């Protein structure tokens, strides 16, 4: 496959590109879903092809084909360069690429049990079995899903990179829906679409869906008659899964350098962050330490090299509450005058690599969920995301959770339905006064991060743990 990528790069350069790179990607995907004790869907997809990126002057071009013969590869390289020339009809400022080490290497993600080698029958039994358990427990709609991605990449650049990677990712989840008079209540485990990692089937076994099926079915039904989350301002404790969503939406996307530079203004949006304030802006309380670390074993945003050939390396994003870093690629880093990149990925051979989150998450704090509840006189504990909405600058958010519990005088009280909270990112993070420690820190995986035009689906990881926030507006309803 290196030969195909090399052919494409050489063709792009011969056509006039001053830089070119190519990725041959072979992707296999498998998922199975079940509902109410019956198999709902088995999807198996396979795609292979080559995508070529060419730089002419200050303008990029990209072309991809699903054929892997030499002629197709050459045509892809030539087309990428031709498209780059057309981009110069509306040219931008001078463009440099951050210098990175040129590597010839091979990398594979850790995988104890190949998920595609586990029998379909066994995997079917798992998702069918847990939905049957939930359905028998009384919920009208019980669903479960697993997903597996197996991606091999061969990357070649005109600078001399020659890197192959084999990344295996998988995960599973389940949810159920109780339907009442005019409303529904949902419970999930471990998260609505499941929890995912760069790991083998051991990730799914460790999730242990069967152990939680009856519990979430009972909770969904109980929520139908639980009191409504009150409207007002109170202290909020968020569970780890909801914290992963909070980090993803109000930190991860906000620190993407392409957004900060305005390159996503037409669609995904921009950011409330101004590069001139990097290193001087308070993002949150001193408990807030966020890193982007693609080297975390098993986390969904892990890799050996990004799709520009930059080796994986951790990077501080927020240190002691101060904003100190971004997620960058070679061109955006050079534009911003930064000396690091490494966060550029594509979701397949046919898509242009772009700035994406890696594993963006919190470092551990000194507290625990138990100590937070004990220290709270009046508040609400919310967990498991149900809805999420945030503005195009990543400041104003409103998130809903599946379940809440009243906290009174340091004790968890009655269940609350439809808990929501809303806030402004930097004010919200500044109010974080308790953060759980390493024993409650978990690498949550988000397999459905949408960005780009044409759209791409990114896989991101989020180390997160429970945290407490003070004086939060809750209970907004329609």
């Amino acid at each position: 496959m290196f030969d195909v990528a090399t052919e494409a790069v050489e063709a792009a350069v011969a056509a006039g590109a001053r830089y070119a790179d190519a990725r041959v990607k072979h992707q296999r995907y498998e998922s199975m879903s079940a509902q109410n004790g019956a198999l709902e869907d088995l999807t198996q997809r396979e795609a292979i092809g080559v995508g070529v990126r060419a730089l002419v002057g200050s303008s990029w071009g990209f072309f991809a084909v699903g054929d892997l013969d030499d002629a197709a590869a050459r045509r892809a390289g030539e087309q990428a360069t031709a498209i780059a020339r057309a981009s110069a009809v509306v040219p931008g400022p001078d463009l440099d690429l951050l210098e990175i080490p040129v590597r010839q290497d091979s990398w594979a993600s850790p995988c104890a049990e190949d998920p595609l080698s586990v029998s379909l029958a066994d995997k079917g039994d798992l998702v069918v079995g847990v939905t049957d358990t939930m359905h028998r427990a009384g919920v009208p709609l019980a669903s479960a899903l697993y997903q597996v991605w197996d991606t091999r990449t061969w990357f070649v650049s005109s600078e001399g990179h020659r890197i192959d990677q084999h990344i295996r990712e998988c995960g599973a989840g389940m949810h159920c829906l109780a339907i009442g008079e005019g409303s529904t209540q949902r419970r999930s485990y471990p998260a609505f679409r499941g929890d995912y990692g760069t790991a083998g089937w051991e990730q799914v076994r460790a999730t242990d869906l069967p152990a939680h099926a009856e519990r979430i079915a009972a909770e969904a039904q109980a929520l139908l008659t639980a009191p409504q989350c009150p409207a007002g301002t109170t202290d909020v404790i968020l569970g780890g899964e909801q914290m992963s969503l909070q980090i993803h939406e109000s930190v991860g996307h906000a620190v993407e350098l392409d957004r900060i530079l305005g390159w996503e203004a037409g669609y995904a949006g921009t950011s409330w962050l101004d590069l001139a304030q990097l290193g001087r802006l308070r993002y949150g309380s001193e408990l807030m330490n966020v890193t982007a670390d693609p080297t975390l074993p098993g986390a969904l945003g892990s890799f050996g090299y990004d799709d520009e050939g930059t080796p994986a390396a951790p990077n501080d994003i927020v240190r002691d509450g101060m904003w100190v870093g971004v997620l960058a690629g070679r061109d955006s880093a050079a534009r911003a005058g930064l000396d690091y990149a490494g966060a550029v990925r594509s979701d397949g051979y046919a898509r242009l690599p772009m700035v994406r989150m890696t594993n963006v998450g919190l470092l551990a704090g000194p507290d625990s969920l138990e100590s937070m509840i004990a220290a709270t006189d009046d508040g609400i504990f919310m967990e498991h995301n149900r809805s999420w909405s945030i503005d195009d600058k990543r400041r104003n958010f409103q998130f809903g959770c599946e379940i809440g519990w009243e906290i009174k005088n340091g004790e968890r009280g009655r269940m609350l339905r439809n808990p929501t909270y809303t806030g402004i990112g930097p004010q919200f993070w500044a109010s974080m006064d308790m953060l759980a420690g390493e024993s409650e820190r978990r690498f949550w995986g988000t397999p459905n991060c949408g960005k780009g035009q044409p759209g791409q689906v990114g896989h991101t990881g989020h180390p997160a743990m429970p945290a407490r926030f003070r004086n939060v507006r809750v209970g907004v309803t329609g």
Partner: protein
Amino acid sequence: MTPADIAAQVVELVAAAQPGAEAAVTVSRETSALTRFAESFIHQNVADEADVVMLQVHVDGRTASAQGNGTSAEALTRLVESTLAAVALRPADSSYPGLAEPATLVAAGNWDGATATAEPDARAAVVRAFVDAAAGLSCAGYCQTGRVEAAFANSAGQAVSARVTEAGLSAVARTGRSDGVARDAGIALSALDGHRLGAAAAAKARNGMEQVDLPPGRYEVVLEAGAVSDLVGGLLWQGLNGKAVVEGRSFAQVGAQQFDQAITLYDDSTDERATGLPFDAEGTPKQRLELVAAGVVTGVPHDRRTAAACGTTSTACAVPGGERWGAFPSDVRLAAGTGDDLVAGVERGLLVTDFWYTRALDPRTLVYTGLTRNGVWLIENGGLGPAVSTLRFTQSYVDALAPGAVLGVSSQQYSVPGGVAPVARGTGSLVVPSLRLASWNITGGAAG
């Protein structure tokens, strides 16, 4: 080989490998090109060509499907073998609805040859015109073209093929304090007027620079096409969906007057502006499908599986992955009304350009939260007042369109790029008017 040749070959391969097996094959040959710009320069410019082969087999009461992008004899044989291997491991599929019977297409698909072969220079020229017309404002957006040549064949004898093209432009002009947006879409790149759209976006942006804050509360609103497209999408994703109805989580009650009589919603791939294929993922020919007529829910999109569960017939809205997501229409139209100037009748309210990042809090009540984007203006005494800073809403989409709640529908319709749903291989279109609604629940502003 043409997509029709490939589809026929796969049906034959299945028959040879597993006599008696039922097979359904969709082959899609796609070229997609998108020229993206920001800060008034083209920063991403991409194109890709792909063949996609989707196969579903049904053997001995079991069903399996698989997808690949290889069309060589070896690749097709491997796809057939792996799908047949998978089907043997599946449990019985008791709700398998059978294959679509042979039927001829009602529409041929809309095709523009120049768009099908558009070079990057042609898209760049549209971008150049948009940026120039914005006269110094920073511009960001995209211009795209696409072509799909697709064929479907099954072992029951159904064999159809068609080709479609699409073109779209969506972009903002930015002042630094405000954004203005303009969009258009259709089957031909030549119909996209970059200059007109750039000027319109710039005018909106300049008109929105000085913004005031508004307190939360209920406001009468005039929703422009971008915001209306979000409402329509919400109805289709969560409620007007056969699977949602089967599962009991939909608001929709066929035959009930659930919306204002000004609301008529339908799917029409026979429309000359349609960019969707004229058949669905199960090979059923599309025809005009009425969903809401004068406020009465008259139908929901079905594939063969959900239709069977409801005791009706497919509405030709099957999509890949529909087992999980349900059925979706491809060429959605909200009927125009008679209003020439919806703002003129509003004593005090809001003019909303777009909604952004909308998410359902409950699928049954269809309460959504989201924000405004690309401009909001206060309406006072029938005229536009000051621009308003970003607002958050929490509002039931069904209630917003309930009987008596729709005070006006514009006579002009607008084509919104992107469609509303994961349509069967290819493209889709969405054409909607502006709406004047009696009440919209604003629950916060940019400050919280």
